[in-house]
């Protein structure tokens, strides 16, 4: 992350804990199948809590660490402006509404999911949703095409997880050191 400049950019706003909660509350209910674009709009364009450059830095850290990316982002942004209380406010704001909405949908599914017509409709949505994930995988794979060891690692991971159904923990502990060695042998960019 770029440290905040000594003389703060006059165009930027420093949010209160309350603003963190309500800012992320809006982000939470905005997106379908991914809320990151809405986080960008809120943080950089609408509320002006950070610059474009700072957002990219926060995003890359959110993606680098394990955990849901948008949750990580709420923790980083909340911490930066409000310490532990700010992180808690941003996180709570983010998940509050989506949590209630998903429970309502889950309850409806439990109540009506067995009706034949509902069942058939859901089967259609499920088939479509699988396609969304495949498309995401293909988009993520595009930058790997130039590096043969990366393609190899991706294929081994696929065979171990999808075809052999090996436990994720073991596969990651087996493959990550190999991937790290291969990445370290490449010349610095």
């Amino acid at each position, binding site marked *: 992350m770029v440290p905040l400049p000594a003389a703060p950019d006059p165009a930027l706003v420093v949010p209160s804990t309350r603003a963190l909660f309500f800012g992320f509350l809006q982000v939470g209910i905005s997106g379908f199948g*991914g809320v990151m674009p809405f986080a960008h709009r809120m943080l950089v364009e609408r509320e002006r809590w950070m610059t474009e450059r700072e957002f990219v830095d926060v995003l890359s850290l959110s993606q680098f*660490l394990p*955990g849901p990316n948008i949750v990580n982002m709420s923790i980083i942004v909340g911490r930066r402006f409000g310490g532990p209380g700010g992180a808690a406010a941003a996180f709570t704001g983010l998940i509050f509404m989506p949590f209630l909405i*998903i429970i309502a949908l889950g309850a409806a599914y439990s109540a009506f999911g067995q009706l034949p017509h509902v069942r058939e409709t859901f089967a259609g949505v499920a088939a479509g949703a699988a396609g969304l994930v495949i498309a995401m995988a293909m*988009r993520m794979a595009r930058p790997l095409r130039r590096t043969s060891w990366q393609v190899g690692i991706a294929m081994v991971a696929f065979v171990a997880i999808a075809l052999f159904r090996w436990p*994720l923990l073991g596969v990651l502990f087996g493959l990550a050191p190999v991937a790290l060695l291969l990445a370290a042998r490449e010349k610095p960019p």
Partner: protein
Amino acid sequence: MSDAGILAELGRQFTVLSLLSIGGINSLIPEIHRQIVELKGWMTDAQFSELFAISQAAPGPNFLIVTLIGFFVAGWPGAVITTMAICAPSSALTYVVAHLWDRFREARWRIIIQRALAPLTVGLMFSSGYVLTRASDHGVLAYAITAASAATMLWTRVHPLAALAVAAAFGAAGVL
């Protein structure tokens, strides 16, 4: 298994998964399916893929598939426990690392880790697509819908929800 036993098991599983979720929650789908459907038998293939579909069609972050699974298996307490378990360990790590990040942003080892994790994430994401396809598709038409929805996302600017709505219409028409 007793109710408390199920809750403890859910909490334990997702606490571990929180720290293994490189590249976000969708890369965990194969492992969640393995544990919840294959090992524990807490839901069927069809139910798993339908809950995933609901989480994709609902507003908000996509990690809510985990909340939904907790709710389906163990009601409200299950939903709260799985949500906290998937978020707390990674969030604690993020909080600590955010503190140290400034010092390392240009470090070479950081770039190496990123390059090493990228192909693992891609392999896991393809695995998720594979597992979801296997769990949801029975018959040529279902496979065709999956392929059409993937192609639509890759080569057009159609919104994902529109693709899911068309898929739902095919399902409702009873062709699957």
